[in-house]
C-alpha cells in the first residue's frame, strides 16, 4: 500500500484549441508539502482546479482515497477531504471572521456532525491557529490583506481537510508576514494535513517544500527534492533565470555570516 494521498495520472486539459495541461502525472505523499511552481500560463491554476474538482480533465484522472475526483460533484469534493484557498480571496464580506470560519465548519467533512455551537467552537479554535482571534468579530471586508489571507486558510481548514491546496497565499506579504505564514503552514502540516502550495515566492517554496513539481507550458518538466529540482538547468531556463542562482548564493552567504557571528552551526545542506 503506497503512501500516496493523491494520484495525478496523465492529466490533460484542453480549452478550445489549446492544451493548458498535457500528460501531467505525479503522486503526492501523505503528509508532504508539495511546492508547485512554474511560469504564469504554465497550468498551475488549471491543475489546482482539476484537483479540486472545478474542471473535469479532458484526459487522465485524479484519484483520492479510492475516488476519482471527476466523478464527484464540485461542491462535494471537500467532503472527500480536499480543500483549497483562492488566489483572489473570497470571504463572506458581511460576516465577521468567526462566522466565516464557522460556515466552513458547518459545511465540511465533519459539518453534519456539528451543532451550531460546536461549529463556532471549532471556528474559535482555528482562529487561534491562524492568529486571527484578535479580530474574530471584525467584518471580513474590514480585515487587512494579510488577515484576509489568514481567514482564507482558516475557512479552508474548517472543512477538516486531509489535503489543502494553497494558491499564492504569500503574494503581497512582507518578509515578516511571509515568515508568519510559513510558520502557520508548518503548524497545519504538523497536524497531519498534506499541502500543495502554488507560489512564486521562491524563498517560501524553498523553505517549506518537501518536494517540488515544476510545470512549464502545460507539462511537468521536473519533479523531486527541492535541491535537485532548483539546480536543474531546464528549470533554471524555464523559470528561475540565471540570476536566481547567483542571488541564492548571495543569500546563503549572508545566512552563513549571520550564523558565524552568532556562533551557530552552519545549516544542513539544503
Amino acid at each position, binding site marked *: 500500500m503506497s503512501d500516496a494521498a493523491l494520484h495525478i495520472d496523465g492529466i490533460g486539459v484542453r480549452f478550445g484549441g489549446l492544451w493548458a495541461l498535457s500528460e501531467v502525472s505525479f503522486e503526492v505523499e501523505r503528509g508532504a508539502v508539495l511546492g508547485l511552481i512554474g*511560469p504564469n500560463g504554465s497550468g498551475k491554476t488549471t491543475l489546482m482546479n482539476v484537483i479540486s474538482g472545478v474542471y473535469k480533465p479532458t484526459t487522465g484522472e485524479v484519484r483520492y482515497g479510492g475516488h476519482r475526483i471527476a466523478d464527484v460533484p464540485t461542491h462535494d469534493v471537500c467532503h472527500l477531504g480536499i480543500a483549497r484557498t483562492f488566489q483572489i480571496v473570497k470571504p463572506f464580506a458581511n460576516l465577521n471572521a468567526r462566522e466565516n470560519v464557522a460556515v466552513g465548519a458547518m459545511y465540511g467533512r465533519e459539518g453534519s456532525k456539528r451543532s451550531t455551537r460546536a461549529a463556532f467552537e471549532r471556528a474559535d479554535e482555528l482562529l487561534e491557529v491562524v492568529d486571527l482571534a484578535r479580530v474574530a468579530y471584525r467584518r471580513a471586508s474590514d480585515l487587512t490583506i494579510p488577515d484576509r489571507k489568514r481567514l482564507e486558510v482558516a475557512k479552508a481548514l474548517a472543512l477538516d481537510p486531509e489535503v489543502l491546496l494553497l494558491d499564492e497565499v504569500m503574494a*503581497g506579504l*512582507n518578509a515578516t508576514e511571509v515568515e508568519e505564514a510559513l510558520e502557520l503552514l508548518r503548524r497545519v502540516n504538523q497536524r497531519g494535513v498534506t499541502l500543495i502550495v502554488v507560489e*512564486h515566492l521562491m524563498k517560501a517554496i524553498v523553505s517549506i517544500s518537501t518536494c517540488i513539481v515544476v510545470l512549464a507550458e502545460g507539462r511537468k518538466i521536473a519533479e523531486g527534492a527541492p535541491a535537485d529540482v532548483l539546480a536543474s538547468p531546464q528549470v533554471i531556463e524555464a523559470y528561475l533565470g*540565471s540570476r536566481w542562482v547567483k542571488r541564492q548564493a548571495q*543569500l546563503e552567504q*549572508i545566512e552563513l555570516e549571520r550564523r558565524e557571528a552568532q556562533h551557530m552551526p552552519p545549516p544542513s545542506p539544503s
Partner: protein
Amino acid sequence: MKSLTIDRLCAGYGDTQVLWDVSLTLAPGEIVALIGSNGAGKSTLLGAVSGLVETTSGSARYGDVELSSLEPDRVVRAGVVQVPQGRRLFSSLTVEDNLRMGAYLRRDREVEADLEKILALLPRLRERYDYLAGRLSGGEQQQVAMGRALMARPQVLLIDEMSLGLAPVLVDALIDILAQIHATGVSILIVEQDVQTALEVSSRAYVLETGRIILTGASADLLDDPQVKKAYLGV
C-alpha cells in the same frame, strides 16, 4: 537635465497621514530604488508625485516645476510617468490600444515611430498586438504597462512593484528591458518589495518604513547593511 527632488513631503488620505517628511532625489539618468514593506507608503509616495494623492506639506519638484499641486495629466506632460502597481491596463482594449492610450496627451507626429521602437524593445507585444490586454499573462501585462508608459515619452519613469506575482525569469527579462530604457537617458525610480532585485538594478536606494525614510545609500552598501539584511532579505 532635470532632477526629481522630493523635499520633506507629507501626504496621506483624508485624516490618515501616511508619509512623514520624506526627502528623496533622483538625479538625471539615475536608477534609484525605494524599498520597504507592504504598507510602508511607497505607492503613496508615487501617488503624491503623480498628483493622485494629496500632499499636505513639503514639495515634489521636477526641475523647477512643482508637481504636488498639479493635476495628474500635467504631471505626465511634465515628463514624469508612472507604471502603476498591478499594471492597471485597460483590460477590454487590445495591446495596441493600450499602447496608443499612453500617447493620449501627445500632439506631435512621432507617435507611430515611437510605437515601432517600443515594439522592437518588447517584441512579445507585437505577437500579442490584437489580443485583449485582460487575456495576457502577468509578464506580458507588465510589458504592456511599461510600453504604455514609454508612449508618453517620459523623462522620469516611476515603476511600482513590477515584480509582484511574476516568475523570477520574467523579472530578469524586465530588468534587461529596464536597462535598455535607462540607456536612452530616462531616469528611473523603482519601487520594490523584492529587495534583492531592486538593489541589483539601482545605483542608490532609500528604505521607507512606516512613512519615513530610515536609510539611504549606495545600493551595494545597503545589501551589506544589517538592518536591511534582517528586515528585508529575511536572513
